[in-house]
């Protein structure tokens, strides 16, 4: 999967789970500070990425990811 395609899908997932407009989401967006995520929602984001990409991620490392761009990097590793 191309990086641009992964990024598009990540943005779709983030938009749906956090209820924010896709147009405001950039690779630099931080989930909590910029997109208004409650810290408890991190688990929902991880589960949503796993469902969207059909992968199983290493949970503790996944929960450390703080920005949309880093999430794209992290998910890319599982799609190689």
């Amino acid at each position, binding site marked *: 999967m191309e990086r641009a395609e992964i990024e598009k899908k990540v943005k779709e997932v983030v938009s*749906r*789970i*956090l*209820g924010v407009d896709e147009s405001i989401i950039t690779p630099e967006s931080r989930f909590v500070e910029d997109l208004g995520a*409650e*810290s*408890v*929602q*991190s*688990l*929902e984001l991880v*589960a*949503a990425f*796993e*469902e969207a990409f059909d992968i199983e991620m290493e949970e503790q490392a996944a929960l450390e990811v703080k920005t949309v761009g880093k999430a794209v990097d992290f998910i890319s590793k599982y799609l190689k």
Partner: protein
Amino acid sequence: MGILENLIKKVSGGGKKIVLPESADNRILQAAVLLKEKNIAEPVLVGVPEEIEKTLTNSELGCAGIEIIDINDPSLLDEFAKLYQQQRPNVSEKIAHRLVRRPLIFAGMMVASGKVDAMVAGAANTTADVIQAAALTIGYQKNISSSSSFFIMEMPDGKIFFYADCAVNIQPTSEVLADIAIATATSYRKLMNQEPLVAFLSFSSKGSASHPDVDKVVNAVEIAKQKDPYTAYDGEFQADTALSEAVAKKKLKDPSRVAGRANVLIFPDLDAGNIAYKITQYLAGARAYGPILQGFAKPVSDLSRGAKPEDIVAVCAITCLLS
């Protein structure tokens, strides 16, 4: 009889059901057997039934008729995924299915769906994990949007005080401080069957000092009073003003129901709360029971990672009484 014995006596025989999702931990199994044998509460273990039964048999604990729920039960997973999705519509049912397979979330859904009265975990998970699972599945109590914790402090003369928050919120805002006070008042009422007199503590008594930290506490008192007008909240008070009627008379111009008679102490931040409970414990010889989590719509509590089976039983008893 001490406070803990009193609370255990109060809950015993009531048949409260408490779910314990960390069934791979031997201390949890020992605690479940004690709860069942002493008729304190009905423990419900979550996990793979064959594995739990094997551990119980190998450790010679015996099953003692303890209810075991299969975490892979397809009909329960379906039911919980549907309910989760209804409660949190941004999450699809497929994603909810992934979430409810996690033991803490599964157990949280057992509480949310009313299958059990309460949940205790934390022997093998962090406090943050337990709070996250409870927030996602059970949500917060009315008027509150954050969780916190309290300690029951039993003084050598038998007097009881509730201290909060000594374990969860590091630098609470006025809003969170008000949430802590409202939740602790609720916990006090449920456990003590008495009226909570809630003092917001500070280094200032009713304007004796000016500082943004004092303003934070003053605002918190106002928010708590607005959200919960039927409970006695007052402050900002120095600790002596809150605890001694003689000092309160000297320091305050206006009468206060709380000053000098406070039984619930709300600390301005975690530094103050954590230091105060340990100082009370070590210098005054008080016994400290907690931290017990609070603020959720139904009771969930955390355990210290080093908890012994009898500590787990005590937390379960207190948590059941909060339901």
